């Protein structure tokens, strides 16, 4: 791996000034910082270098060294241990949400690392739910050690209280699996008996054996009907109560009636039984439901992801001194101490001290804002450089962060066109089916009362809208699993439908089309006493001390002049003494005043000595290398492309011109972006929004479909429908193509289901189809639908 590929561990660009490497399997790989080096070495030294071969996505960046993770200690007290873990005899079990995990390799790394810690009985990670189930010895148990290990690997651990860990989806999936198994095993058994029964019909019959086989079939079918098919009955009843009959109603009538009639026939030694049809019917329906549920559960639960933005603990100032408390115990009015580098645990107000806060989480603005006593602080933002005391004004879901996440949640559910195609037609078809079945029953009751029941049953079974019901979920499930192989996570099942119909792709600029990392594009030297090289070196030396996001642009690999007395002036710049003269770098006023250059394409940073401006630097955000290809590919799919950005007009114009985008909007606040999207929607456009900023969270939710890169802000991901893993932009087109293909398959499936039903219905109504043939026809039609959907797995 070369430098150009970025850090071996986290894939971020390696600064030119950094020549750290890590040796793995005799090869040396560049890393971007000592933190990544430490993590990579930890992974290597524990014999887990295979992680790098197996992972899909780069690691979540630098962990915190274990010794710095004193904040976890708070979880060691007896009462916290009880609150976050459950005791079983001599062991405990805790569930920990692990933020920053994207692939199975991560779960392997976590499991193996923790599994080797003393006292750990077992560690199981579910990469889909991001939850780690950890069993450890009760004696001498220290949760803090495990949390610190996770943190040092670069993940964000978050212990969950036992109540919040029993997720309804898990229970739902388990029950559905059980039902599916009962239905499938029951079907197989009953089929076997049915073969016996039919062949006996042919070859002459031993009445006792026939009765015996029917009885056995009855025993097997009973749990299938009452256990496996239970959801259909409850669903049908709910539909009746709500006066909105769903597909469950005809299904329940068919299953219930066929079962009741078969039971009656069994015990009165009647003409025929339909246990085989009943079980087959139930099995295929249950299978359809199961597939649909799996597709739905792919919607990843990101509710806990948000809380990882907040620190786990805070330092509360009491009369008695400082106490480290979990964030969940904070209350309004609490006085907190926040050190430099920590995140703000709750919304509040500065009461003492000055600092600057990085609120990029909420605003997307990378520049820290200066904060003095009386200024508001936002939970989740980072206290960059000063120690402050704050008073809590709101906590938890009342904070700005909580509100935004709730808002985007709401916007997501209020989205138009949410109902899928099958849902829309299902109700009509169901009512139509019931009417037809009733008509058939009445007709045959007068024409031939003996056959009336059998024929009505056949009609209900053969026209079962299973193929119709399976058409969409089967295709979505197949598409979802294929897309995750193509490094796209679909978090919203309906995203594929809206993606396939998209007409307009709106891109955010910073961090999406551009790298989001500024670089020096030009240096203007005013004072001829200095060369450009001098200026660059001095700037690099001064900015070396700064944590400001722009500072990284100045880094140079050369030997830098020595700086003394360096001081970071919050919101202004950096000053320092080089060769006995005071140098300053920062904004114009700070450096020398007066030297304003009104040109807003790029950010200007001024360098001056003793009050005189020497030079200024133009900093610009670079385009991603594949941005142009991707925009062209999106166009060739027939989509219009637009660019919206919060940046100034010139910067946006430059990017738009470079990419050939005509439709561009600059200086947009989040509200403006949302308005642009809504206007487009009113024009009849179907909008895909691609963005990564936190600012875009409500905007993403407002678009028909939203795509966020995995390296973007967490909050954006919580409201995105599709998450792109990896740095490349190419998945945008893949997603659209895949969505179109999926919808094509869905349409084929629906068309087939309708053709089948319209052909089968008259035949069954005319009495040509016995129930067993009806069940086979129904199953075959469903099978075709599933097989057709599976073609999506071969999508390239």
């Amino acid at each position, binding site marked *: 791996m070369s430098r150009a590929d970025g850090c071996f561990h986290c894939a971020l660009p390696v600064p030119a000034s950094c020549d750290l490497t890590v040796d793995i399997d005799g090869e040396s790989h560049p890393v971007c910082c000592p933190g990544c080096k430490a993590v990579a070495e930890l992974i290597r030294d524990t014999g887990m270098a295979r992680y790098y071969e*197996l992972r899909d996505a780069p690691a979540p960046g630098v962990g915190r060294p274990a010794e710095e993770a004193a904040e976890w200690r708070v979880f060691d007290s007896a009462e916290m241990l009880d609150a976050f873990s459950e005791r079983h005899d001599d062991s405990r079990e805790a569930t920990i949400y692990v933020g920053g995990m994207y692939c199975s390799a991560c779960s392997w790394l976590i499991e193996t690392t923790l599994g080797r810690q003393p006292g750990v009985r077992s560690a199981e990670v579910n990469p889909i739910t991001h939850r780690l189930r950890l069993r450890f010895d009760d004696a001498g148990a220290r949760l803090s050690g495990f949390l610190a290990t996770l943190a040092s690997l670069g993940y964000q651990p978050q212990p969950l209280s036992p109540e919040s860990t029993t997720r309804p989806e898990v229970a739902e999936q388990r029950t559905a699996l059980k039902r599916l198994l009962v239905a499938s095993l029951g079907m197989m058994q009953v089929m076997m*008996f049915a073969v016996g029964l039919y062949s006996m019909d042919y070859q002459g019959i031993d009445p006792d054996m026939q009765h015996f086989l029917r009885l056995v079939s009855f025993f097997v079918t009973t749990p299938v009907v009452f256990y496996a098919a239970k959801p259909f009955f409850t669903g049908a009843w709910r539909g009746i109560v709500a006066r909105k009959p769903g597909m469950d109603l005809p299904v329940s009538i068919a299953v219930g009636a066929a079962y009741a009639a078969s039971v009656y026939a069994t015990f009165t030694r009647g003409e025929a039984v339909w246990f085989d049809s009943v079980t087959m019917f139930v099995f295929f329906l249950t299978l359809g439901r199961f597939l649909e549920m799996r597709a739905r559960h792919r919607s990843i639960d990101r509710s806990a992801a948000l809380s990882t933005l907040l620190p786990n603990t805070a330092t509360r100032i009491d009369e008695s001194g400082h106490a480290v408390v979990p964030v969940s115990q904070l209350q309004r009015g609490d006085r907190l101490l926040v050190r430099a580098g920590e995140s703000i645990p709750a919304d509040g107000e500065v009461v003492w001290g000055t600092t600057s806060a990085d609120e990029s989480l909420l605003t997307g603005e990378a520049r820290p804002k200066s904060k003095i006593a009386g200024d508001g602080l936002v939970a989740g933002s980072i206290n960059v450089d000063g120690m402050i005391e704050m008073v809590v004004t709101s906590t938890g879901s009342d904070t700005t962060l909580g509100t935004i996440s709730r808002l985007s949640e709401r916007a997501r559910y209020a989205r138009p066109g949410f109902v899928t195609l099958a849902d829309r037609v299902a109700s009509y078809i169901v009512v139509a089916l019931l009417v037809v079945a009733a008509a058939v029953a009445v007709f045959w009751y007068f024409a031939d009362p003996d056959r009336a029941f059998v024929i009505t049953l056949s009609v209900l079974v053969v026209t079962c809208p299973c193929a119709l019901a399976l058409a969409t979920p089967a295709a979505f499930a197949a598409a979802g699993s294929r897309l995750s192989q193509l490094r796209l996570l679909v978090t919203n099942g309906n995203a594929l439908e809206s993606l396939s119909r998209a007409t307009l792709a709106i891109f955010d600029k910073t961090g999406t089309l551009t790298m989001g990392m500024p670089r020096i594009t030009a240096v203007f030297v005013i004072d001829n006493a200095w060369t450009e090289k001098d200026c660059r070196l001095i700037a690099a030396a001064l900015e070396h001390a700064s944590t400001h996001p722009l500072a990284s642009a100045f880094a140079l690999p050369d030997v830098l002049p020595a700086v003394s007395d360096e001081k970071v002036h919050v919101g202004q710049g950096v000053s320092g003494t080089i060769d006995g003269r005071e140098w300053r770098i920062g904004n114009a006023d700070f450096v020398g005043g007066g030297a304003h250059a009104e040109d807003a394409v790029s950010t200007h940073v001024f360098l001056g000595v003793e009050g005189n401006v020497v030079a200024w630097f133009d900093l610009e955000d670079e385009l991603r290398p594949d941005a142009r290809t991707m925009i062209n590919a999106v166009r060739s799919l027939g989509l219009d492309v637009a660019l919206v950005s919060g940046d100034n007009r010139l910067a946006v114009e430059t990017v738009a011109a470079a990419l050939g985008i005509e439709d561009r909007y600059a200086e947009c606040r989040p509200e403006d972006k949302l308005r642009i999207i809504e206007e487009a929607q009113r024009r009849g456009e179907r909008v895909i929004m691609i963005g990564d900023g936190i600012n875009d969270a409500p905007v993403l939710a407002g678009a028909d479909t939203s795509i966020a890169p995995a390296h973007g802000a967490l909050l954006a991901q919580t409201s995105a429908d599709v998450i792109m893993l990896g740095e490349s932009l190419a998945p945008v087109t893949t997603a659209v193509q895949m969505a179109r293909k999926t919808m094509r398959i869905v349409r084929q499936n629906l068309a087939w289901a309708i053709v089948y039903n319209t052909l089968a219905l008259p035949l069954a109504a005319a009495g040509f189809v016995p129930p067993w043939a009806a069940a086979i026809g129904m199953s075959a039609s469903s099978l075709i639908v599933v097989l057709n959907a599976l073609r999506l797995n071969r999508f390239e």
Partner: protein
Amino acid sequence: MNILYVLIPLALLLLGLAVWAFFWAVGSGQFDDLDTPAMRVVMDDDSKPKEDEPS
């Protein structure tokens, strides 16, 4: 044919056993994550440089 009167109940018994075993497996969470175990086979850590050292 009379052997069927024995064999079929026997089959049902086995069926019951299979269902019970499966319910137990589902209940103990073995089917909760169907993605990672497939990877786990590939992930045998054959390189253990520091395994022998006391940790």
